[in-house]
């Protein structure tokens, strides 16, 4: 199957190094301490953060730091066919774990001992790259909740099809059987927080694809920063803080 035409256009008209259109919104769930939606093309994800608050299960309380919990689920209407997905299925558990670990490495948990931070992420529409969108949404939600973090976490995925590295695969390209590298970075610190890949790649190609994914993640981080700034400014001006 031809994923890139000889003219250099992918199935949806992007070039290999172009990302899909991004869109983020904050404060979507009023009751949550922090919340955000993140859209990468047709993939739409909503994240809600509750906390830091009292640990509900006393036995799990950590004396020195905050307990971070994460739950990932896909809405039944998120894929083409309506599917009942129990929360306990393996993929959800795996991605929950991945998001939790990524976010935990970003949050300064030692500043919030004996408390609990809950991150809930739900995929509303899945079109490839759900993992990345979830991490981005969770990062924005955490920032919205005012939870101290080392740095924002931005994530993007890249693959390799028809002998070309491709950035931000959508569902059709993801199903193409090629490798899929997801990377989560701290843009300011220039460190990698998450690195996952499925399928196989020889090492030199892997480096190229990783570099591309990292660049994509940094571009995403730029966008997230813009949106956060706007949000902060809005909040500030609403409060009329200048006067006080």
């Amino acid at each position: 199957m031809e994923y890139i035409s000889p003219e250099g256009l992918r199935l949806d008209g992007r070039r290999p190094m172009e990302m899909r259109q991004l869109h983020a919104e904050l404060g979507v769930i009023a009751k949550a301490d922090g919340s955000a939606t993140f859209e990468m093309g047709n993939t739409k994800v909503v994240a809600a953060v509750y906390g830091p608050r009292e640990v509900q299960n006393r036995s799990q309380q950590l004396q020195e730091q905050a307990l971070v919990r994460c739950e990932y689920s896909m809405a039944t209407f998120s894929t083409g066919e309506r599917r009942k997905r129990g929360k306990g299925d393996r993929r959800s558990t795996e991605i929950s774990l991945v998001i939790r670990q990524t976010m935990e490495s970003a949050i300064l948990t030692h500043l919030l001992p004996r408390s609990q931070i809950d991150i809930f992420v739900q995929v509303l529409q899945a079109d490839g790259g759900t993992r990345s969108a979830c991490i981005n949404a969770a990062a924005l939600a955490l920032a919205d909740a005012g939870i101290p973090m080392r740095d924002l976490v931005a994530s993007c995925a890249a693959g390799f099809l028809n002998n070309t590295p491709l950035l931000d695969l959508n569902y059709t390209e993801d199903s193409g059987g090629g490798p899929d590298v997801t990377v989560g970075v701290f843009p300011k610190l220039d460190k990698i927080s998450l690195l996952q890949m499925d399928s196989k790649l020889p090492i030199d190609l892997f480096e190229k694809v990783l570099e591309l994914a990292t660049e994509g993640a940094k571009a995403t981080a730029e966008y997230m920063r813009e949106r956060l700034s706007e949000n902060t400014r809005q909040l500030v001006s609403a409060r009329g803080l200048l006067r006080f």
Partner: protein
Amino acid sequence: MGGVRTFPFHMSEEEQRRFAKAQERLDRLGGALPVVNVGETIQADEEAAFLRGHGTQLVDGKLVATVCGIVERVNKLISVRPLRARYNPGTGDVVVGRITEVVAPKRWKVDVNSKQDAQLMLSAVNLPGGLQRRRTADDELNMRNFFEERDLISAEVQAVHQDGSIHLHTRSLKYGKLEKGQLTQVAPYLVKRLNHHFYQLKQFGLEIIFACNGYIWISGPSEIPDKKGASSELLVNVSNVNEMHQCTGNKESTVPTEKREKICRCANALRVLNALGLLIYPESIIDTYEASLMWGTDIKDMLSGEFHVKVLEREVSKRSKSV
């Protein structure tokens, strides 16, 4: 549409446009503020020594923000105050909280909208029959007679310890169980820090407790005298708690309808301010309340998009006048 935040009320197209315009003007009036986001470097003089405050971290010798907020510089202390966060308790703050747990034998756990639940020790409450009394075993067993789970209380923050635990006390007659009123939860960072927290809005006949943790309590005028003097009734030595209750309870058993309406209107005004992200202090509440009366808005319509937009526009005009 251009905005980043979603608002929890519904607006029609027309209203959205007006809203956006009003926001824009608000933005322009705001001016430049030292706003910083997570991971951004804070302008700091490298040579001058500075003290690192909350919301910052040191990365490669540079000061980097860990939260989104405003940079505050107080002498050498540089910190970032987050715009949205859970309540950060300080000693002497007045808080309203809900009892979550009775941890016999000695304390109650209270939810105060903070990172952890606060603790109210038995030794920190006002016992009936005198201010200082040894806590007997009886008292310990009867803790529930005093405050039960799901009771609302007002208290003051006694101390905040190193590990983040919060200790409250109700060592004053103005603190204690709250009844016959409405609790409104607003964002704690919108509540302006004031000298007094107990306010009486005589024009409406309401009392408000501006708790710093965002749990605002509105009720009708109570019989409990203000802090200046203790009611003679309270000085009566009572041997048990039950009698005390009978004494301190309001004479009326139910709250009349107009009172309820007033309380509701006030609560809605609070909600509107909370939703719009405007600062909450007595004047703003009074203002909003009066505006609603002036525009003849029904209590239930106060939560509509229309009202929100009008309040925002009013705020804009207010600010532009004072600039």
